[in-house]
């Protein structure tokens, strides 16, 4: 507890970030309770209704309450952010660990594949993947996760390489510990800190990638209220007559990504001081 207070005082920006994230996660979990209306029910009479006491931040073209859609949209963004980050970081960490520790041919192949993936622009890869898998929430998550893998794998690999040379690992090897055991007991725990830092940094960018995919007509399909989809396409056309359609989802995305970035920064300073200042 005192630790928490200490960190809170030292990293005020981090606290703000954490608060934003907490509000975001709670909104997502309790969307069904918090949202004043059903996010999918259309209402012809409320089409493009401006903000009022009924529709706090207005209604969209289909007369659906924007506030309720934004609240439910938090779920989609959370699912995309968590899903893609976990899959991407998880697979990346595994590959990085294996290639760093095993070295040799395996390392060489993983390195080349990572380099190939990094030479293809991220958005283009996500574009091709969603196009082949078809638009759905799961497929969007996969499409965003795959391009994350090489980056994570490289960082973890570099970390493992430096750990491998450390004295206690050599000692473990000397006393005849198995390779898998060394990797899991001595090396893996030591890569956790950079992994967490990296994963937090990616939380925000996955949400942004989803938004860009939606802008290009891919991403999470209707009628799911994804923030990215909400502010692209037809909504963007109404920027003059119904600016609330464009401004609020954009603000929501920016706020959450901002929160994740603030929190990630603070976390990096705490867990892995070498990477930051």
């Amino acid at each position, binding site marked *: 507890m005192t630790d928490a207070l200490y960190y809170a005082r030292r990293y005020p920006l981090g606290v703000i970030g954490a608060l934003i994230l907490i509000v975001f996660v709670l909104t997502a979990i309790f969307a069904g309770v918090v949202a004043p209306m059903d996010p999918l029910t259309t209402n012809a009479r409320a*089409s493009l209704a401006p903000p009022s006491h009924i529709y706090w931040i207005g209604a969209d*073209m289909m007369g659906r309450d924007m506030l309720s859609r934004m609240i439910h949209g938090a779920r989609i963004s959370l699912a995309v952010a968590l899903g893609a980050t976990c899959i991407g970081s998880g697979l990346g960490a595994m590959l990085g660990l294996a290639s760093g520790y095993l070295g040799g041919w395996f390392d060489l192949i993983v390195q080349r594949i990572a380099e190939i993936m990094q030479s293809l622009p991220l958005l283009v890869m996500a574009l091709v993947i969603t196009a082949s898998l078809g638009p759905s929430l799961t497929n969007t998550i996969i499409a965003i996760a795959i391009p994350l893998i090489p980056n994570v794998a490289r960082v973890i690999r570099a970390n493992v390489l430096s750990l491998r040379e450390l004295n206690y690992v050599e000692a473990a090897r000397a006393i005849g510990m198995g390779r898998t055991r060394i990797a899991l007991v001595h090396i893996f725990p030591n890569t956790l800190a950079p992994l967490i830092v990296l994963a937090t940094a990616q939380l925000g960018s996955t949400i942004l990638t989803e938004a860009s995919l939606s802008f290009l007509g891919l991403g999470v399909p209707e009628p799911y209220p994804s923030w990215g989809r909400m502010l692209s396409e037809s909504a963007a056309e109404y920027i003059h007559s119904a600016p609330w359609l464009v401004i609020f989802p954009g603000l929501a995305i920016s706020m959450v990504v901002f929160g994740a970035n603030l929190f990630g920064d603070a976390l990096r300073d705490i867990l892995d001081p070498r990477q930051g200042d």
Partner: protein
Amino acid sequence: MKRSGFLLAVVCLLGLGHAALAQKQGSTLRVTHRDNPPSASILEEATISTDMPFMAVFNNLVVFDPASPVNRLDKVVPDLATSWAWSDNDRTLTFKLHQGVKWHDGKPFTSADVKCTWDMLTGKVQGKLRKNPRKTWWFNIKDVATDGDDTVIFHLYDPQPSIMAMFAGGFSPVYPCHVPANEMRTHPIGTGPFKFESFKQNESIRLVRNPDYWKPGKPYLDAIEYTIIPNRSTMVLAMAAGKFDLSFTADLTPELTKSLMEQVPTMQCVMQPTGTQGNLLVNRERPPFDNAQIRKAMVLSIDRKAFSDILSQGVFQVGGANMPPPEGFWGWSKEYMETVPGYGADVEKSREQGRAIMKSLGYGPDHMLQLKVTTRNIPDYRDAAVILIDHLKSVYIQAELEPLDSSVWYARLIRKDFSVAMNIQGTGIDDPDVQFFENFLCDSQRNYTSYCNADLEKEFHRQSQMKDIDARRKLVWDIDKTLQEDGARPVVFHAQAGTCWWPRVHGINIARNTIYNHWRFEDVWLDQ
């Protein structure tokens, strides 16, 4: 020299009579374009993206009177044909052609070019066109013959007054015989007022004045330049800023049109039916939709007015397969529509009936029928499908959206690999022959729901041969009613959209009942 020029101008002015302003020669007309046309070959495409920009390169045999705001059979006037005559009990149609017309590459235009064009369109000459989307339009042509360079004769199987409408449509230009089809896709050659100059993919299309145009003194513009702007918000900003003179036809939703007119009070805008309709495709071969009762319940759940209010602030119209009046000529009158089931004003009552049907089949609030609504993954389709899904809930149907990439959409429809689909389809001409033969013949390629009614098909042919327009319209109404009652392809809305231009553009006359014609630009000029 000066004096004769002056005299000439005076004579021109007098000749024009009522024209208040003299047409000014020169200037480039800048037009927005909604997307990249698949090719420059009008005969091979069925999209306005190709039709509008390239129509000015060509001429037709006949056209809908450019001065008339309606495209109708009695408004057909000569273009490349100077006159035409029916004979042999209306089974032979003879066109006399203009002489001395030259293609843009200098070769003379003759009757052989006309024959050649329709031999390709009817499929008599194979392998020239890569695709031929309007083959069904010309099913009635037995053969085409020439008589010297200036006469061409069409022999028909049956009398068909509407064939004149098809000849007059923007989709039926005359192609040069001597230019290979692939060249027509990349560098079209025509006889029209403008010559093709360039087509840069995803960027721009540029046509320049044809100085040797066979209609003396025309056209007035030096060039027409289309800039492709797929992002509609950017397009509206650019239009409002005056970067363009004319917006792509029917590219502005009713809401955007309103907003643009508010931003620029002098902007000239026309709202017109786009010839596209939203309709419901139900796969009647796949259970449980082979049950006519379920299909009926689905139709009863639809609130057509809500579609129109949401998608267009109430501008979209309700009707049967044919375009509704006042713009459309063949659609039901208001009074007639009242007699068609499912078109009543009381939606709640219809939905009550729908729920009763579903209950009798064992469905209810706790046991909803689960299904997927398939649609194309582009906004217009998706928006309509989302509303449909919401309406289906009212008759115990729980639907999920299945958005399909454009590349697989038609392939899936033709394979009949769907249960329920939200479809939007366009029709090039406001004409019952086009509508019925394209979509509802038992073996038509576009008959996605495999609706097949042999008795009705006889009626299609019967109306097609009728010369009395009013009697024909009555029959068309009845046919349309049967189609809707049978749930062949329940029509949900008829779309409308806006086209806008700055007041400096003169001579634009937009047809009220089609977006596909009137884009020859030979009378258009800019005052700047």
